């Protein structure tokens, strides 16, 4: 399973981050935990790829951030989706579903 974890595609990670944030704002580690939980432990993005991705998405205008207290009272940076990010999530979900469907069909045939 370790192999799958490290071979996480960048586009996939972006999509997972957007999805993880679709239900509300989270700090960096929270995003990682949510993804792990959503994928049943299949994906657990490492900080080395998670944080660059978060900042890239923020710079692209899909996420915005604010500083707040974390669950154990540490000053943490919370991310949430912007409207553009929500739209991006919709588009990418659609694209991904098309690809996944096509792949499944191709592999099953």
């Amino acid at each position, binding site marked *: 399973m370790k192999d799958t974890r490290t071979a996480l595609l960048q586009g996939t990670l972006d999509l997972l981050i957007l999805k993880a944030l679709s239900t509300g704002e989270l*700090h960096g580690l929270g995003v990682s935990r949510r993804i792990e939980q959503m994928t049943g432990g299949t994906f657990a993005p490492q*900080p*080395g790829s998670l944080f660059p991705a978060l900042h890239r998405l923020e*710079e*692209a205008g899909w996420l915005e951030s604010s500083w707040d207290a974390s669950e154990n009272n*540490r000053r*943490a*940076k919370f991310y949430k989706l912007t409207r*553009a990010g929500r*739209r991006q999530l919709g588009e990418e979900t659609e694209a991904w579903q098309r690809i996944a469907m096509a792949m499944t069909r191709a592999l099953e045939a």
Partner: protein
Amino acid sequence: MTPLRRLIAFWRNLWRREHLDRDLNDELRTAFDSLVDDHVRAGLSREEAQRAAALEFGPIESVKDRVRDARAGASLDILRLDLRYAARLLRRSPLFTTVATLSLAVGIAATTTIFTVGNGLLFRAPSGVQDPDTLVDIFRAEEGVPMGNFTSSYPYFLDVQRSATSLSGVFAYELEPRPITIGSADGTEVAFANLVSPNYFTVLGVRSAAGRLFTAADDSTSEESIAVLSCRFWQRRFNGDRAIVGATIQVNRYPFTVVGIADEQFHGVNLLSPEVWLPMSAIAVVQPGTRRLTNRALLDLGMGGRLKVETSRSQAAAELDQIARQIEAAYPTEEHGIRLRVGRLSSIPGALTTVATGLFMLLLAVVSTVLIIACANVSGVLLARAALRRREMAVRIAIGAGRRRLIQQLLTETMLLAVLGGATGLAVARAATSLLLAALPPFPVPIDISVPLDRHVVAFAVLVSGIAAGLAGLAPALHASRADIIVALKDESQGSSDRQRLRSAFVVAQVAFSCVLVVIAVLLVQALQRIAATQDFDPHGVEVTSIDLATAGYAAGGTFARDLVDRLRAHSAVESATLAQWMPGRGGTDVAVTVPGVTPPVGESSFLGTANAIDSDFFRTLRVQLRAGRDFNASDTADGEPVTIISATTARYLWPNQEAVGRYITWHERRGGTTDIVTMLRVVGVAPDLKSPFGRPRRRATPRDAAPTTDVRPAAAPPVLMMYVPLRQRFTPRFSILARARGEQPVGQEIRRLVKAMDINLPMMTPQPLDADTGPVYLQIRVAASVAGAVGLIGLVLAAMGVYGVAAYSTQSRTREIGVRLALGAQQADIVRMVLHHGMTLVTAGAAVGLALALAGGQLLSSRLAGVEPFSATAFSIVAALFLSVGLAACYLPARHATQIDAMEALRYE
């Protein structure tokens, strides 16, 4: 958050990296600590938890690096996207792109051209010298005389040189190179020589291209006469032959040894570039009999110096001020009120720098308005486009684009326009600069004007383009990004009044600015016309040069002069020719005269007269009719009866309402000793006054004048009595040659050829048209008038484009309304009136504001430039009419377009 605040925040983020880094640090720290907490909760010891967390996290610095890369990458991606999008938009509307680019290019080119010239003349240190930053220009100032003489005498220079301790060296040079003859085995020719103090080259740190330059040892006591040649002259005259170093050449027929050639880069310290340098002691050869080395009244030297290490210019200035006061104490009469000033050593010497800088700043201010107009224009077009793009903006905001992103995108578009405009502008500026230099009147002395397109100029153009982009783009960008989604998506024609108002304001401003400039140009042109009208003679078509027979070794020269003028008159291209000791309108030699039967002013024993020795045909050559009497003729020889022609004012003052011809004037002279030589001159003619419009009122230099007098003075002080005397009766070896061409072809070259044919060794100034010699003020006004005029007309064209844009847009957005009106039976004339009304309101408002500003501008101008009237009804009405008609023309097309709207079509449109 307002868009402006967002913009500020955006820039802050961009520039405050450390702030971002601290945030990133905090973020990762928190994440790491939380990870440790997780592991502790899962049952690990704190140490083990930390190790596990560190393993999971990887090296924290590399994570940071990757975050930074990701951010930068994203920004660059966005910039690339924006640029591509902007480029596509600009390509898609070529008309808009062309208009906007050209507008900006015009503005940027205008400012850059002026800056290039100013940069070349004012801020460029002389080339070919060592460490130009520590060189200073030292010049004199007369206390209480704003534009007094700034040059120094040789004794004064020696005083300064002896006392100055803050300078490692003080040098002096004649401000103007003087014509001399250079003779060698292969002939003789005229060259321009600069007399300099022996330490000139050492203090400046000029290198030699061959041989050696002067050293302090080459002072007046040295036996041998020596010269240094400029590299250019050496190449041209001697083909760069090294054998010339050490060889003997003839300077004004006197042997000089060429000791060396100056470095190729060095052209002297100011604009005038000498071809030969001679030590000051050579004055005995160049100008025999002068007391230049000892006379404190001979002021024609420029001074310069080099600051000692760790000495500032202000320290040197303070010391020199002290020195000036000491010299004044030592020579209380000769050096009364003389102070010393210190400036940068630049192409323009001494106090002239202040004048030139002022003019430069004025020009820059004037051309900056073009840039402002251009920016307003682009702003206007962008606003109009923003109107067309409201849907696009609204859609983008609706689907979640941040305002910051929109502003960024719009600014990227403007930036791209500014880059295009800037590049075009720079190219245009380059062409304009060379055109400007080519249009300069010919100089009698070789000059070195290099106005390079150096990095300062490029930096300036980039800066100006940036400012232009900001000016032109910010308002439309802020405005566009505020698009009201609902309104924009729902309906086309509402919600745009705000934008329309802003755009209208821009057009008003444009019209006002160009109006000011055109009014000023007209005022200046009127001043020029007035000058031309007050010029009592017709300088057009007359070429003038001057020669000095004394320096060329003629003992008398009278025969030579007669021969020369006869040959000139015989030439087929010459209508008439004459000789004159002084140029017309430039006064003459001060003389003391008495007049039988007329009492001199109270307290004086004689009148102050000014005499100009002229040959016959002087008045004919200037196209001036004598009021009475006759011109000088062949019978007025040295043996004949002494005669004079006086000016009309002189005649009126001496013999009011009486015949002046036939009366006598007594000329008193002191030649050599104290004996008063008295000559009776019979008045044979009366000539009109030949005023120089900018001639400074002559100050009477009698000591009595300075003392406060208590006696009652006559209401009107007597005029300076202007007298012309025949050159044959009072010959001077130094005179000007004036020749009027028969046709349009100038005869300067003919004069030159004739003089050369008579004596190849005679030094002569390059002939110049007489109308170019109307003084620096005239030139200043002419330059200012052409710049203001050109700039104002460019502004007018830009403003017309603005008016057209507004009128066209308003017609377009009111298509439906016009359709309804037409359908309801409105006449075409009504529609035209409606469109015109809107456009012309703007033009009228702009013109009104412009004229009001021009009123203030005229006041300012007339206080700065002599001869300019602050207000002229003609100027103002001409300009008002011009702007209204251009405005009408600009509105005409949209109006015509409006009348052609098909009512049915317009109504069916929605």
